C-alpha cells in the first residue's frame, strides 16, 4: 500500500515542487506517482466509489498544479496536498447530497441523510455510512483515522508524516473514534 519512498533529495517533494514551478513535466509525474495512492485512500474512504475517488484524485492533482506557486518551501507538503484533496472531496459530497436531495424532492421523498439510511432497510449499507461519518470528521482527526486504519500506519509513522507528536496522534485518534461512535450511534443502531 505504501508508495515508494522519496529517499533521495531529488525525489523529495520540495525539490519536485521547485522543478514543477519551472515547468518540469517529469517532476510533476514523479510527484503524482508518489502521492496518488495516498490521495486515493483519502478520497475512497470518504466517497466509497472507485470511479468517483479516481476523479477526485485527478482533480486534486490538477488543483495542485494550478496552485503550485502558493506552496511555501518548508511547509509540510503531504499535509498541504491532503488539505486540497479533503476540500475537493467535501465539495463533491456536498454537491452529491444536493443532487440527491433535489431528485428526492422531485419524487416527493424525504431528505436523505446519515440517520435516514438506517430507517430504510433497502438502502442500509454500513460501509457507506462509515465513509460518510469519516468524511464528517475534523481534518486532523480524519487524517489520523485514515492513516491508521486504511493505510495501516503506526502512531509514530503518522506523527512523522503529519509532523506532530505521537501523543497528539493518539489524542486525535481517540477523538476521532469518539466522534465516530456518536455519529454512528443512530444510523448503525444495534450494529454499533
Amino acid at each position: 500500500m505504501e508508495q515508494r519512498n522519496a529517499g533521495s533529495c531529488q525525489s523529495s517533494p520540495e525539490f519536485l515542487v521547485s522543478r514543477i514551478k519551472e515547468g518540469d513535466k517529469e517532476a510533476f509525474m514523479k510527484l503524482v506517482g508518489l502521492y496518488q495512492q495516498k490521495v486515493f485512500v483519502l478520497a475512497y474512504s470518504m466517497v466509497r466509489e472507485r470511479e468517483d475517488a479516481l476523479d477526485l484524485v485527478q482533480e486534486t492533482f490538477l488543483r495542485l498544479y494550478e496552485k503550485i506557486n502558493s506552496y511555501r518551501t518548508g511547509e509540510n507538503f503531504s499535509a498541504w496536498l491532503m488539505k486540497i484533496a479533503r476540500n475537493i472531496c467535501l465539495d463533491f459530497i456536498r454537491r452529491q447530497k444536493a443532487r440527491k436531495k433535489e431528485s428526492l424532492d422531485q419524487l416527493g421523498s424525504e431528505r436523505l441523510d446519515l440517520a435516514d439510511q438506517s430507517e430504510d432497510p433497502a438502502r442500509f449499507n454500513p460501509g457507506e455510512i462509515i465513509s460518510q461519518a469519516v468524511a464528517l470528521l475534523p481534518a486532523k482527526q480524519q487524517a489520523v483515522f485514515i492513516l491508521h486504519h486504511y493505510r495501516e500506519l503506526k502512531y509514530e509513522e503518522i506523527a512523522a508524516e503529519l509532523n506532530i507528536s505521537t501523543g497528539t496522534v493518539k489524542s486525535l485518534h481517540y477523538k476521532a473514534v469518539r466522534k465516530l461512535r456518536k455519529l454512528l450511534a443512530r444510523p448503525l443502531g444495534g450494529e454499533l
Partner: protein
Amino acid sequence: MKKCRRYRQDWLAFLRGELDPARQQVMSEHLKNCSRCQQELEDLRKLIGQTDDLKNELKETMAGLDWDRFQLTVTERAFGQKAGREQVRPSTGLKWHRWQPAVAGLVAGLLLGAFFTLLWLRPGHLYQSPAAKETAVNLPAGFVQRVDLALAQRETIDYLDRSQYLLLELVQAKSVSQASTFLTQDKVQELLTEKKYLNNQLNEVKLAKAKMLCDQIELLFLELIQLSPQMSEAELKGLQDLITSRQLLLKINLVKRELRPSEV
C-alpha cells in the same frame, strides 16, 4: 471515572494486543470492574470491524487499478490544460513580458521623482543644505503670527505718519502753487505704492480699523494725483474740506495710538 481516562487512548492497542504485557494486564483488571469501559471497548471493536471491511475493500480496489497509466493521464491533463490556457489567452502583440522590466523601471523612476519633488516642495522639507541646517530654528507656536502683526503695525504707522504729513501740508496750503511745491506727484505715487504692499499685511493680520482709514487716504491720494497737474483753487478747497469734514487727521492720530505698542 478518572481511572477510565487513563485507559481510553489505549483501547485500540489493547484490542490488537500491541501493549506490553504489564499494561495489558492492568487494563484487563480495570475492564472487569468497569461497565463504561466495557461498552467503549465493545463499540470500538464494532467500529474497527467495520473499518477493517473498508480497509479490505480498499486494498482490493487499489490492486485492480493501473497506477502507471493513471499517473500519465493526470500529468498529460495537467500540462494539456496549461497549454490550452496559454493558447486561448489572446496575444497582445506587444510581448508584454519583454517590456516588463523597462516599464517597471520607468514607473519606479516616476514614483521616486514624484516623491522627492513632494519632499522638496514641502515647507519643512526633509533635505536641508548645511547652511540651512545651521540657521534652522524651532519657533514656538504663534510666534510667527505675533511678528507679522508687529511688522504690519509698524509699517501702517509709518504709512499713516507720512500720509498725515502730506495731508497736513495740503490742509494748510493757502494756494494751489503753495500746495504744489511740496505735494509732488512722486511723493503721492510713492505713498500709493506703499499702500498697495500694505494691503496684504493689513488683510492677513486683520487690522480692520486701520485698513478702513488707509483706504480712505488712498482714495484721496488717487483723486489728488489725477487733479495735481492742473488743480484749480476750488478743487484744492474741495479736498481741504473733505479732509477736515472726515476728520482724517484726527482719525490718523487715534489709529496710530491704537497701533503703537504700550510703553508701560
